[in-house]
């Protein structure tokens, strides 16, 4: 028995040592070797992503790229989204990393930029100059201002609504804030949850999103954001505090015990017609329709609440991420070819139709009419989701503090003023206005 254990231990040790040995990145090198054999001097690029669920769509999309670039083969390698950041940071530091990688936006990109792991694309991908400036911010280094990726998608925030429930209850998409509250009251009286909002354990990250949807106009949208960045205003501003208070005021129209409600619960409530309105991002349209394909969904922008500095409805949004080139890639030229192609309308259109997402490539219109409407609203009334866009460059994140404190407000442990104070206190430890 003992001898067998020792033999086993030596075996494990041998495996462990061989894994540690230099040149152990067998997968990447092996892949290239195979490529060489198969197609003469064909180059295999490895493309990393956090979208495990998109494998088929990407295979289709990349097949198009290979048609026009016969000397390049692209291998799509997805990882679990929750582990991706670490896998990528490690992958980029070694020799077995990707050639092209899907990159997080804004603060999520920063650690890779500061570690010098990505190739700046300024001047190398000409098409980037035509991209929306707001979306390009998500792919820029915070300090050097260089562009490190080709943005692939963006998300917009609005309220989805169930057309049939609205019709049955004689409710219209609201033109004013008061209309919206009246509609919510009417729906609630009819036994329907007016707003499908979750604030449970898995849903804290959606609280800043819900706040943006209802409160962006109330705190003053882009103008307030500029004032925050220049140091002219702080989160403790009365307008920002009032925008937080809206969530507490709306709580009676959220599901009962909202801090115990999870995201799948509200998706189910909305998809099964038990809730009439779903304040969420464009990313939720596909899952909702997958749960109930016959659901008739409309969307509206929230009318500005009373007292808002901004008097027209806004659609907050942000860049979802980008594709960048590994500074250590052995095939920089080919990798650059791929990201250049990802900035073309051909890729944008394929991406939009295969994945039902809003493509960041200029001039691409979504085939889905509802997504097209969201895209139109963003183009006309787009506003930055400032906690995500500007306040994720240090620890603690603005939105991390925000979501914890809002949850406390919803259970009655704190109020809107204290939430605003906490956010300000958290971010001012690293955020220096005016940079």
């Amino acid at each position, binding site marked *: 028995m003992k001898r067998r254990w*020792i033999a086993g*231990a*030596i075996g*494990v*040790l041998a495996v*462990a040592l061989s894994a540690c040995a230099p040149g152990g990145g067998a997968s990447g090198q092996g892949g290239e070797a195979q490529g060489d054999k198969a197609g003469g001097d064909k180059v295999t690029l490895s493309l990393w992503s956090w979208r495990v669920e998109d494998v088929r769509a990407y295979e289709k999309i990349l097949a198009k790229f290979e048609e026009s670039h016969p000397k390049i083969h692209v291998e799509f390698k997805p990882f679990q989204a*929750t582990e991706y*950041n*670490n896998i990528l*940071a*490690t992958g980029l*530091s070694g020799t077995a990393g990707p050639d092209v990688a899907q990159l997080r936006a804004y*603060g*999520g990109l*920063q*650690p*890779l*930029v*500061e*570690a*010098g*792991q990505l190739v700046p694309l300024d001047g190398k991908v000409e098409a980037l100059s035509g991209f929306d400036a707001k979306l390009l911010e998500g792919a820029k280094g915070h300090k050097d201002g260089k562009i490190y990726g080709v943005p692939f998608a963006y998300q917009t925030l609005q309220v989805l609504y169930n057309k049939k429930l609205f019709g049955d209850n004689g409710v219209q998409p609201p033109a004013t804030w008061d209309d919206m509250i009246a509609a919510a009251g009417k729906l609630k009286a009819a036994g329907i949850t007016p707003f499908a909002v979750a*604030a*449970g*354990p*898995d*849903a*804290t990250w959606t609280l800043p999103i819900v706040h943006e949807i209802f409160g962006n106009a109330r705190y003053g949208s882009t103008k307030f954001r500029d004032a925050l960045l220049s140091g002219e205003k702080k989160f403790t501003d009365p307008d920002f505090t009032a925008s937080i208070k809206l969530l507490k005021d709306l709580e009676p129209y959220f*599901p*009962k*015990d*909202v*801090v*115990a*409600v*999870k995201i799948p*619960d509200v998706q*189910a*409530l909305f998809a099964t017609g038990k809730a009439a309105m779903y304040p969420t991002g464009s990313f939720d349209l596909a899952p909702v329709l997958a749960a109930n394909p016959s659901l008739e969904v409309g969307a509206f922008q929230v009318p500005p609440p009373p007292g808002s500095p901004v008097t027209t409805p806004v659609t907050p949004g942000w860049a979802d991420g980008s594709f960048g080139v590994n500074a250590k890639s052995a095939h920089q030229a080919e990798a650059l070819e791929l990201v250049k192609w990802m900035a073309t309308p051909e890729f944008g259109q394929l991406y939009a139709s295969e994945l039902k997402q809003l493509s960041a490539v200029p001039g691409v219109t979504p085939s889905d009419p509802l997504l097209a409407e969201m895209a139109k609203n963003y183009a006309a009334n787009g506003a930055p989701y400032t906690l995500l866009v500007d306040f*994720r*460059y*240090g*620890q*603690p*994140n603005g939105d*991390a*503090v925000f*979501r*914890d404190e809002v*949850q*406390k407000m*919803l*259970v009655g*442990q704190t109020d809107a003023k204290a939430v605003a104070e*906490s956010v300000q*206190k*958290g971010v001012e*430890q690293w955020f220096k206005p005016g940079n």
Partner: protein
Amino acid sequence: MLAVFLLPALLLYSVFIVYPLVTALDYSFFEWRGIRQTGFAGLGNYRDLFGVYPYDRQLWRAFGHNALFFAGTMLIQNTVGLLFALLLYRYGRGKRFLQAAFTTPYLVDPLVVGYLWSLLLNPTFGPVNSLLEAAGLDSWALPWLGDTRTALPIVIVVNAWQWVGFPMLLFSAALAGIPAEYHEAARVDGASAWQAFRRVTLPLLTPAIGVVSVLTFIGNFNAFGLVYAMAGSTGSPAGSTDVLGLLFYRVAFVEGGTEAIGRSSALAVLMFVFIFGVSLLASSYFRRRERRLL
């Protein structure tokens, strides 16, 4: 010759235990920008944990919850485990079956257990509240995991549900090792059942109680999977279930700032030093108690 046989184990131990620990210690003393070290930080990362808002508050809050988690587990899981062991010892029927039954939840990962219980306790679709309502106990149909007063106790109870078989097995083994003559002698001397338990059985269980306590302590201060599955990475609701493991996870992975590696390593080192230190102290305390028995 002996050294040759020790070598593989020593190598394994070094590669998988010592090396990562030393690495964390090393990382915690440096400034980080992403995965690039930019300079020596001294105790800077440690100071950040105690000085940067909101970590300064979250650290103590999480520590307090771990302490409550430990106290609650000792009180519920380990006393119930002892009770089960005594009952099985006294009434031997179905012992094997019951032991197996009580230990089956071991086989399931805490993440899965947490997920299952959060489904059962779901206030919108969960069967627990539907049952309570069907039984006319509407006022009992609380949002168990959504109320700051009930969330942590529920997590403690579910954790006990999963692990109660562990103290039961250890206590069963210890009970089986107590010579029957001691009980007979106590009975002959006219001791009541309670007196026999309190004066004979319990003191002789000291070694088992020591092992169970120390292992419970280590497990509870490292708690992560179950709490994560039931309360998310923020220790929902409103941080009322936040524990050190979740705080580490947030600092290291969720917020993912450029300083993440330094600060999370510092927290890992603090947790290790505390758990290791207290375990050593507790072990030596119980060893002294045992020696007094002899």
